[in-house]
């Protein structure tokens, strides 16, 4: 008998069952089998097999079509039910979607931010082979790590080491090159992202060229390559190749060079995530003309950056130890020049992709990334997402408990548990996706604001990076599963008969979970409130009185061109500006508050030039500086015109300087004489100022020395009053044209500039503020929803209580009591955590506020008030209802 029933081809049968998803598929399979066995009897097994295959292949298209039709029908049904549910509970759905959207928007932006930070310089072709040569040195002045290296290093390395594929020097024209005047006919702008570079730049970094030849474009002197944006800025839409740009290099110590440059290439714009952000590269041969000793001078070190690209498979450690031989070239030159010994001087290689996050040398091209803030932002984004998710989970849990009947019925009609799980997962995915679409909308609207706040260049195109989109997708799935897990995996296990008989009262199970979620949400909110208040209090403190100078109503005019004219005639220029009625004062100095600047004097006590000098940061000022900036004296006198010889004979120091120079008190320091290395003059300390925090209060105030040294002056400060500022600025502009013809007029307000010192703190404060606000509103909306649900569940109980004589107040107290306990509990959790976290944050500041108990009280109280308000609002509605209406049906 067995011989008579041959089996149909197994693969074909498997295919059939794979595609035929219909419930009564068995009858079709049976038909196939029956006909197959008949055929194999009458026409032989091979014929039957062939028939099976042929028939299957002809049947499949229509079978597949049918089963797709069925799946679609079921999905349409799920969607219909889902959308009905969403619309039926509009309020809850809005809360859900809003909460999730807020959380997702924050996390998406943070993901973009974090990826932007972490992908710095990873896009270069062969990025792993590109290194920057940096220097670790120790001398009499101290121990330093510099990003920069001596000028001749790059060509010497390239010549002597076959391991190097290509090397390049990148050199900005001056230390803080914010003022290179570029002209093309009528167009005159100051450019700051302009560098001298060797021709190797295009081979090390593989910068894509739009026009021009990458290999030869920087070979000759006076050639320049521009980014597309720059080409558009100066030459509109024309092809700029062969055209001329006039550039004015106003070297501080050398004569001004004004030369014409031929455009030999147009390159793609600098990506936002590179530490070397460029607009123009000028050929190194030009700089070699300006500074003839560029290629021999080993002694000068500052702001010359050396990049090398190694050949593949070079042992970096090995190579690094080999190039130490070249260090001698520097140490010899140094010892010859200064007569002092260099204790340690070695080169080290920094992988270019790691520079942004890991390198914290002196003289970085731009401020390095900060892990600290990456962590803080990630945590904060996670917290807000958590609040949104908890809302979603809580509300979908309570809502789904009203859907037990639907689940029961679906089961009776034949749905398997798996189907139901998929249904709930699908629904929560739908809501998550809707929320994500809203989140994208938020981001599109708010990203420019965020960029402005955070000083970043994020854009939604970042979402296209595979890593970003994968992590976003993961986030969505996580949220989906998290939100759906209660209904999907708990309700679906119920026995249909129990559900339909009404044995399971909705909302009974999971109330512990509800409590935990409410506690969690409010704990996070209170935590965020405490952090926000603390950050703002600290910021307020750092911007306030304690600064020691007045930063309000100061108009800053940096002088970037015609410096000689300015330095010789600044008193006349000042009084010319002061002729306007709304300009109350004017002063000049070498720098103003908020400007990072390392210049300093090495000082020797009078007649003790053989000893080790003491370095003090210097700021050169004029007679009016202290009074204009409201800086107080601690001892002695300020610079005075009628003392006659102050510019040549007087120093001022600040209180920190007193300590640094080793004096016991301010009075002690008076009349002491010092000689400065810069101008080789010996001057007497005539006064001591109180400390003032020009660099903000994150760090201990720097020891400072002040004198009147005209050759360093480069900023003009105008004190203005607030009446008719626009008119004042117009006046300043006309006067500017008189004194600095042809120089673009640029000005800023000191308080705005100075606030940039607190950029990170400010950024964090605002971000925290926004997120806290979002978090609290999402959490209280969630609470509102939950209270509404509970009020609905208990409306009969409330009505009976009212009938039995309870007052509205009684009912409100009854309803809020539970939530008040929850919020108080969350306060108990949040306060210690916040205390710990904020204490840690504050440790980074040299001058900080005390964490008062008041902050904690305010945070907890505000959470409590919001919670009670939400509950009372809902409770009042149910308490106000007429018991007769509610109880009538019974």
């Amino acid at each position, binding site marked *: 008998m067995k011989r008579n029933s041959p089996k149909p081809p197994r693969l074909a049968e498997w295919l059939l069952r794979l595609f035929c998803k219909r419930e009564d598929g*068995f*009858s079709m399979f*049976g*038909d196939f*089998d*029956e006909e197959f066995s008949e055929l194999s009897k009458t026409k032989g097994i091979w014929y039957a097999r062939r028939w099976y295959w042929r028939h299957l292949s002809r*049947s499949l298209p*229509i*079978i597949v079509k*049918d089963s797709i039709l069925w799946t679609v029908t079921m999905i349409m049904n799920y969607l219909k039910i889902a959308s009905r549910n969403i619309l039926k509970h509009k309020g809850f759905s809005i809360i859900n979607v809003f909460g999730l959207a807020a959380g997702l928007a924050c996390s998406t932006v943070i993901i973009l931010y974090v990826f932007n930070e972490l992908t710095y310089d990873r896009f270069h072709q062969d990025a792993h082979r590109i290194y920057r040569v940096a220097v670790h040195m120790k001398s009499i002045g101290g121990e330093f790590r510099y990003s920069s290296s001596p000028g001749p290093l790059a060509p010497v390395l390239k010549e002597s080491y076959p391991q190097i594929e290509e090397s390049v020097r990148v050199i900005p024209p001056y230390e803080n090159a914010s003022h290179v005047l570029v002209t093309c006919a009528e167009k005159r702008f100051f450019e700051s992202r302009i560098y001298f570079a060797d021709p190797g730049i295009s081979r090390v970094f593989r910068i894509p060229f739009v026009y021009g030849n990458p290999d030869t474009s920087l070979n000759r002197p006076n050639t320049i390559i521009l980014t597309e944006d720059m080409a558009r800025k100066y030459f509109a839409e024309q092809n700029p190749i062969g055209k001329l740009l006039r550039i004015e290099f106003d070297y501080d110590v050398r004569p001004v060079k004004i030369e014409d440059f031929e455009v030999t290439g147009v390159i793609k714009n600098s990506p936002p995530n590179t530490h070397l952000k460029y607009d123009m590269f000028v050929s190194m041969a030009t700089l070699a003309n300006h500074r003839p000793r560029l290629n021999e001078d080993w002694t000068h070190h500052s702001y010359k950056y050396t990049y090398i690209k190694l050949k593949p498979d070079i042992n970096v450690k090995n190579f690094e130890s080999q190039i130490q031989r070249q260090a001698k070239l520097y140490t010899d030159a140094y010892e010859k020049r200064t007569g002092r010994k260099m204790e340690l001087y070695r080169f080290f290689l920094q992988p270019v992709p790691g520079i942004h996050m890991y390198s914290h040398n002196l003289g970085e091209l731009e401020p390095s990334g900060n892990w600290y803030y990456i962590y803080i932002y990630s945590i904060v984004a996670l917290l807000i997402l958590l609040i949104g998710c908890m809302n979603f989970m809580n509300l979908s849990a309570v809502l789904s408990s009203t859907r037990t009947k639907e689940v029961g019925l679906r089961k009776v009609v034949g749905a398997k548990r798996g189907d139901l799980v998929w249904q709930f997962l699908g629904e929560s995915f739908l809501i998550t996706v809707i929320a994500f679409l809203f989140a994208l909308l938020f981001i599109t609207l708010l990203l420019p604001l965020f960029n402005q706040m955070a000083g970043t260049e994020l854009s939604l195109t970042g979402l296209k990076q595979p890593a970003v989109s994968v992590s976003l997708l993961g986030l969505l799935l996580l949220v989906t599963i998290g939100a759906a897990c209660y209904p999907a995996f708990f309700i679906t296990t119920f026995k249909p008969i129990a559900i339909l008989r009404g044995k399971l009262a909705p909302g009974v199970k999971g109330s512990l979970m509800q409590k935990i979620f409410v506690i969690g949400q409010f704990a996070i909110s209170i935590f965020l409130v405490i952090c926000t208040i603390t950050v703002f209090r600290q910021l307020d403190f750092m911007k306030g009185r304690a600064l020691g100078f007045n930063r309000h109503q100061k108009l800053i005019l940096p002088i970037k061109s015609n410096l000689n004219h300015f330095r010789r005639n600044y008193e006349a220029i000042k009084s010319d500006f002061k002729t306007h009625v709304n300009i109350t004062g004017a002063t000049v100095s070498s720098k103003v508050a908020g400007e990072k600047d390392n210049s300093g004097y090495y000082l020797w006590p009078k007649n003790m030039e053989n000893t080790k000098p003491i370095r003090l940061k210097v700021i050169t000022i004029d007679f009016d500086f202290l009074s204009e900036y409201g800086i107080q004296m601690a001892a002695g006198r300020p610079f005075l015109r009628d003392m006659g010889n102050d510019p040549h004979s007087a120093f001022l120091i600040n209180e920190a300087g007193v300590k640094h120079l080793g004096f016991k008190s301010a009075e002690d320091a008076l009349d002491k004489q010092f000689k400065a290395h810069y101008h080789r003059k010996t001057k007497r300390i005539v006064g001591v100022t109180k400390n003032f925090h020009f660099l903000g209060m994150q760090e201990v105030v720097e020891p400072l020395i002040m004198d009147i040294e005209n050759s360093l002056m480069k900023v003009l400060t105008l004190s203005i009053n607030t009446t008719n500022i626009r008119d004042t600025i117009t006046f300043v502009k006309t006067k500017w044209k008189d004194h600095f013809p042809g120089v673009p007029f640029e000005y800023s307000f000191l308080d705005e500039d100075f606030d940039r010192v607190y950029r990170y703190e400010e950024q964090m404060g605002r971000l925290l503020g926004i997120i806290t606000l979002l978090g609290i509103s999402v959490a209280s909306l969630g609470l509102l929803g939950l209270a509404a649900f509970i009020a609905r569940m208990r409306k009969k109980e409330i009505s009976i209580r009212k009938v039995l004589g309870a007052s509205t107040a009684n009912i409100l107290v009854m309803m809020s009591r539970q939530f008040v306990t929850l919020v108080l509990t969350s306060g108990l959790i949040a306060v210690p955590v916040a205390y710990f976290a904020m204490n840690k944050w504050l440790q980074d500041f040299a001058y900080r506020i005390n964490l008062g108990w008041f902050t904690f009280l305010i945070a907890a109280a505000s959470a409590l008030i919001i919670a009670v308000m939400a509950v009372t609002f809902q409770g009042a509605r149910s308490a106000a209802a007429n018991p007769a209406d509610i109880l009538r049906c019974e």
Partner: protein
Amino acid sequence: MKELTKFEEILLVVIWRLQDDAYGVKIRQYIVKHLKKDYTYGNLYSALDQLARKGYVEKRLGESTKQRRGRRKIYYTISSEGSQALEVAREMNETLWEGLTRLAFERKG
């Protein structure tokens, strides 16, 4: 009532003819044998589903045989709506063909 398609009409007639033996294999074989049309089971079941959804046929779970390796048959019977529809179709056909003899048709062609 919607008109039947030709294939639906054929199926209904075949089910009618087969009476108590109307299940997949028999229906298909009848069509192959008498009408020389090699419909696949895919087409067949898709069309039968349509008919069932329109309420023209009823399904009945049948027995299984060894040949079917334990898979049960589904028998189809025509419902009253089905026979009504069939009646309409037949009338339409007869009205359409009335007076035309096969011979006359052949002469014309």
